[in-house]
C-alpha cells in the first residue's frame, strides 16, 4: 500500500511545494521512505545527476573513482558537486556534468561503482530526490519545497516486496534512459521473468524493486518505436500483477492500471493544471476548492497528460 502522486503545473513554478503537499496527505500509506521526481528547467547540454553513496567516511575516495570514470568518458563536472550528509551512513549528492561521449556506455561503467556510490537520476531536466522517512522529513532535508519545475512525481513507500533501504525508495530512474522516472503502487508477480528478459537485452537493475523494472520495460518499448500511450496499453497485458503506476518524461506523465482494478487513482484536471494521486484527499490539498474529480477506478486504464500544449509527443 504505497501512495503515489503526479503534478503538472499550468506554468513552471513551485512544483516542489505541491508535491510535498500531495505526499504529506498520503503519508499514512507508507512512511518507510519518500521521494520526488522534479522536472526543472531543461538544459540544452549537460546532465544533472542525483544519487547516493553508502559510506560517508569514504566520500573523498568514492568521488575520486567517480570522477575518473566520468573523465574516461570525456565528461567533467560543470560545478562543484553538492554533498549532503546527516546522521545516516549514506550521503546524497547532486552533480552537474557535461555530456559524456556516450551516455549508455558511461552509465554502464559508473554502475560498476554501485556498491559504493549510485547514480539515481540523470537528466537534462529530471532530478530524483529520495530518502528515508516521511514527506516533511525528506523535504526539509533536501529543500524540496523550494524546487521549481513544470511537472513531477511523488511517492510514499510502504515496503512489501523488497528491502527498506535508502536506495530502494521511489521514484526510480529508468536506467539508462535519461529524464524518465516512475512511481508505482502495487506488486508485479512475474518480476523475475520480466527482469531476466530485460537483462538479456543488456539492461541493469540496481535493486530488486519491481517499480524499477516497469520503468525500464516501458522505456524499452518506447525505444523500440512505441509511443508512450502504446507502451502503456501494452503493459496492461504484458505485465502481470496488480498495479497503478505513473511514468514521466520531459513531455509529461502517463499512467497505467492493471486488469483487476485493485489500486486507485484520482485526478483533478483544471485550469491547465493537473494533480493525480492515490487518494482524493491528496489532490484536494492542491486544488482546495470543491471541484470535479476523475476517479480512474476501473480496470485496464491508461492515459497520458502532456505539459504545455497538454498533449504528449507521439
Amino acid at each position, binding site marked *: 500500500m504505497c501512495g503515489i502522486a503526479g503534478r503538472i503545473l499550468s506554468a513552471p513554478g513551485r512544483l516542489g511545494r505541491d508535491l510535498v503537499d500531495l505526499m504529506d496527505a498520503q503519508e499514512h500509506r507508507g512512511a518507510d521512505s519518500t521521494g520526488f521526481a522534479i522536472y526543472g528547467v531543461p538544459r540544452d547540454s549537460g546532465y544533472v545527476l542525483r544519487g547516493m553513496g553508502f559510506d560517508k567516511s569514504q566520500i573523498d575516495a568514492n568521488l575520486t573513482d567517480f570522477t575518473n570514470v566520468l573523465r574516461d568518458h570525456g565528461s567533467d563536472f560543470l560545478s562543484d558537486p553538492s554533498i549532503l550528509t546527516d546522521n545516516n551512513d549514506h550521503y546524497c549528492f547532486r552533480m552537474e556534468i557535461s555530456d559524456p561521449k556516450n551516455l549508455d556506455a558511461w552509465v554502464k561503467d559508473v554502475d560498476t561503482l554501485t556498491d559504493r556510490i549510485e547514480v539515481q537520476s540523470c537528466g537534462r531536466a529530471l532530478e530524483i530526490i529520495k530518502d528515508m522517512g516521511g514527506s516533511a522529513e525528506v523535504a526539509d532535508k533536501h529543500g524540496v519545497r523550494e524546487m521549481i519545475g513544470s511537472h513531477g512525481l511523488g511517492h510514499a513507500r510502504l515496503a512489501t516486496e523488497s528491502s527498506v533501504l535508502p536506495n530502494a525508495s521511489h521514484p526510480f530512474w529508468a536506467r539508462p534512459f535519461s529524464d524518465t522516472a516512475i512511481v508505482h503502487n502495487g506488486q508485479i508477480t512475474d518480476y523475475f521473468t520480466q527482469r531476466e528478459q530485460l537483462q538479456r537485452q543488456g539492461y541493469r537493475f540496481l535493486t530488486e524493486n519491481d517499480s524499477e523494472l516497469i520503468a525500464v520495460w516501458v522505456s524499452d518499448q518506447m525505444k523500440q518505436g512505441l509511443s508512450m500511450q502504446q507502451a502503456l496499453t501494452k503493459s496492461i497485458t504484458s505485465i502481470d500483477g496488480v498495479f497503478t503506476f505513473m511514468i514521466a518524461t520531459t513531455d509529461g506523465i502517463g499512467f497505467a492500471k492493471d486488469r483487476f*482494478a485493485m489500486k*486507485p487513482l484520482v485526478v483533478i484536471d483544471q485550469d491547465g493544471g493537473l494533480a493525480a494521486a492515490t*487518494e*482524493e*484527499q491528496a489532490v*484536494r*490539498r492542491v486544488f482546495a476548492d*470543491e471541484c470535479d*474529480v476523475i*476517479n480512474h*477506478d*476501473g*480496470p485496464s486504464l491508461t492515459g497520458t497528460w502532456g505539459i504545455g500544449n497538454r498533449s504528449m509527443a507521439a
Partner: protein
Amino acid sequence: MSEHVIEVGKRHIKEINEEMQEAAAAGKKIRVVNTLSRHNLGIGLPDGAELYFEGSTGYFCGGLNTGATIEVERNTGWALGEGMSKGYITIGGYAGMSCGAAMIGGTIHVKGDTGPRCGVAMKGGNIVVEGKIGYQSGFMAHSGKIIALGGAGESCADALWQGEVWTAGPIDSLGVDVEVIEPTAEEVAEVDAILDPLGLKDTSREWRKMVSGQRLWYFESRDASAWLMI
C-alpha cells in the same frame, strides 16, 4: 431538531467522530463542512442520527452504520458504508470502489455511478445506483440486492452467491457462474417497493436479474469445465 455544524479541515478524525457521536446523542441534526475528502468520517453512528456532508468524503464514510441517515452532497471514496447493518446513506455523485462492501442491512443510494466491486461480499441490505455499477460489481455477494438503473460494467456479478444484481440498462459483460433471468412480477414488485420511497419507481423498466449459476457452489476439482469457468 437543532443543527450542529462540525468543521473537518485538518482536525483529528477521532475527535471529529466523537463530536458527531455526542451531537447525535443530544438529538441534533449534524451538518459537516470543509470535508476535504477525508477518510473515516461518520463511522458507527447510531440509530436516529442525521448527518449531511457538504462536498465530498474519502474512504469508509458511514462504515458500520447502525441506523443513521447520512447524505453526502457530492462524491465519496472507497468502501462507502462498509459493514453497515441499518440506516440510509445517500450520495449525490459518484461512489468509489467497494461501495457497500460486506454490508448486512440498510440502504445505500448513489445518484451517480459507482467504481468496481460495488456490493462486494454484501450479506444483506440494498444498494440502489441511478447510474452504472463498475467492474465486477456484486462479486461474491452473499445476500441483498444491487439495483443499477443505468447498467453494469464488465465481469458483472462474478462468483455471486445468493445476492441479486438487477439492472435496467446494458451489461458490458458477465462474470463467471452468473445467469441472467426474467424476474417474476412479485420480484419486480419487491424492487419497486425499494425504489418507490426514493422517487425512482418506474413501471416501464425492462429488468434483468442476475443470479448465481451455482456451479461454483459445488465445485468439483475433477470437472475440467468447472476449472475453465474460473
